[in-house]
């Protein structure tokens, strides 16, 4: 709760019409932290994630990123998004561009790098996610796992100070999940600050500094993984974890 928290979410609330999807959500992260949001579907975790880069608009509360108010109406949203990378459940790759083209678009058009510099950076990032041999493949020519790694490289190419992962492995066949988690592990080791929505509990347990359990748009419980997974204080947390475990 120190003043120099890197990301501080305070009492964020959001409605869709009359339906309250987030209610007074609060948590904070230090630079280099990994926070994992878990919860049943419809609990608001993806919406919470999207509020951080303003793909969704929170109506109340405060989100301070590196001391700047994300929810301020005067904020340049495009500049915020330059600094916050996002990885999507459905990959959302640009279908008409090669792997390099996908990754280079941001550096070229948003950061204003030259064609060559943008391509170089894209190649570096694709190597970083283990796709040095697929530089010129189109999304439709890649497996789901490869596509998601391109998605990660695309976000990394903007050199973000925070990475958001929105269920990055949920759309993948089980045998392809590993390669994506491996890349994410690598990022954790490099000290990337990551806010992750996922159902991969073993991944969460391994890498998270804090787990935030959301249900019905509210933070039910939060704490370090060993505490939250092994000694949950709330009954709802326990029930959710049991249900997830029986699916694994």
């Amino acid at each position: 709760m120190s003043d120099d928290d890197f990301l501080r979410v305070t009492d964020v609330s959001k409605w869709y019409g009359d339906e309250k999807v987030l209610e007074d959500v609060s948590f904070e992260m230090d630079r280099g932290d990994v926070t994992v949001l878990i919860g049943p579907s419809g609990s608001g975790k993806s919406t919470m994630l999207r509020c951080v880069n303003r793909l969704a608009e929170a109506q109340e509360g405060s989100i301070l990123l590196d001391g700047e108010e994300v929810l301020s109406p005067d904020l340049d949203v495009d500049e915020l998004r330059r600094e916050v990378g996002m990885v999507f459940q459905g990959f959302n790759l640009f279908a008409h561009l090669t792997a390099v083209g996908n990754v280079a678009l941001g550096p070229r058009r948003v950061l204003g790098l030259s064609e060559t510099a943008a391509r170089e950076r894209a190649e570096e990032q694709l190597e970083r996610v283990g796709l040095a041999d697929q530089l010129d493949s189109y999304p439709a020519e890649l497996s789901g796992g490869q596509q998601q790694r391109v998605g990660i490289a695309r976000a990394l190419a903007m050199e973000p100070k925070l990475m958001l992962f929105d269920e990055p492995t949920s759309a993948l066949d089980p045998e392809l999940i590993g390669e994506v988690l491996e890349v994410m592990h690598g990022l954790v080791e490099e000290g990337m600050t990551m806010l992750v929505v996922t159902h991969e509990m073993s991944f969460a347990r391994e890498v998270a500094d804090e787990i935030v359990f959301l249900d019905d748009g509210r933070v039910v419980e939060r704490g370090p993984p060993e505490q939250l997974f092994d000694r949950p204080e709330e009954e709802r947390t326990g029930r959710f974890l049991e249900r997830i475990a029986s699916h694994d």
Partner: protein
Amino acid sequence: MASATRPATVRERVADADRSVGRLLLVAAGALFWGWLVASWVNRWLGGVLVPVGQPLIPAGAVETAFAAIPGFAAYAADAAFVVELTPELSRGTWLTVVITAVSLVLGFFIAVPLAVTRVYGRFSAWLSLAYTELLRGTPLLAQLFVLYYGLNLASYVPGAFSGVFARDVVWVAILGFTLNGAAYQAEYIRGALESVEEGQITAGRAIGLSKLETIYYVVLPQGLRYAIPSWTNEFVYLIKYSSLAAFITVPELYYRADQIASETFRYTLIFVVTGVTYLALVLTASKLMERVEERVSIPGLGADSEE
């Protein structure tokens, strides 16, 4: 060729021809047609370097003699000679048909893209775009041409820079009419294609910091315009044929010239069969051309025939 299901469209028929001997015939016919057209045009522009202006490239008399010499063809010798005599006029008219179609199509495209984009992504402007599209698609093209030509008398207001480019300034009125009308149709085809680009890609574009307009320009349009090619080709083909309506505001294009000769000679059937074949050749060229374009720009990994 003897398949159970008959190909439904010209495109499919042309595609079928690709796989058969028909392809050679088609290429030969195309080469002959365009060779004749271009040679006729060049001859006229250069003041009769091949044959005197107004004369057919091969003398009608020679064709008549040749036909008379072939057993069984003698009965058609006079008709063949008549058709050959038509060719200088038809090639002149075809020039205007080609120019009007091509210019209107290209100009219309540059109006259609913003129309389609505002229709899909605009708010107030979406209504303006819708109103324009419905007005232009919902009223007869001929009536639109009449309003421009007879109603507004636009032929007398052609700006100096454009005046005199064509033998008659009314050609510009026709181009304006077809541009405005074609833009509405093209916008509809492009709108449909833009809507088929996955929403998630737009989100991803915004998430890396592209503005909405940049996302449309770098992500949506490159895909949407590709997806629009097959249906857009329809508009191309329609426009070739609809350009004949320009005859009704006195533009001396292909149909106008054919009609004039027919009313002087009363040989309606023969003249309009030849004219019809000329339009068909233009249409086949257009669809073949667009098929090539579609192949050339198709995205690897996505089925080339996924638009059907």
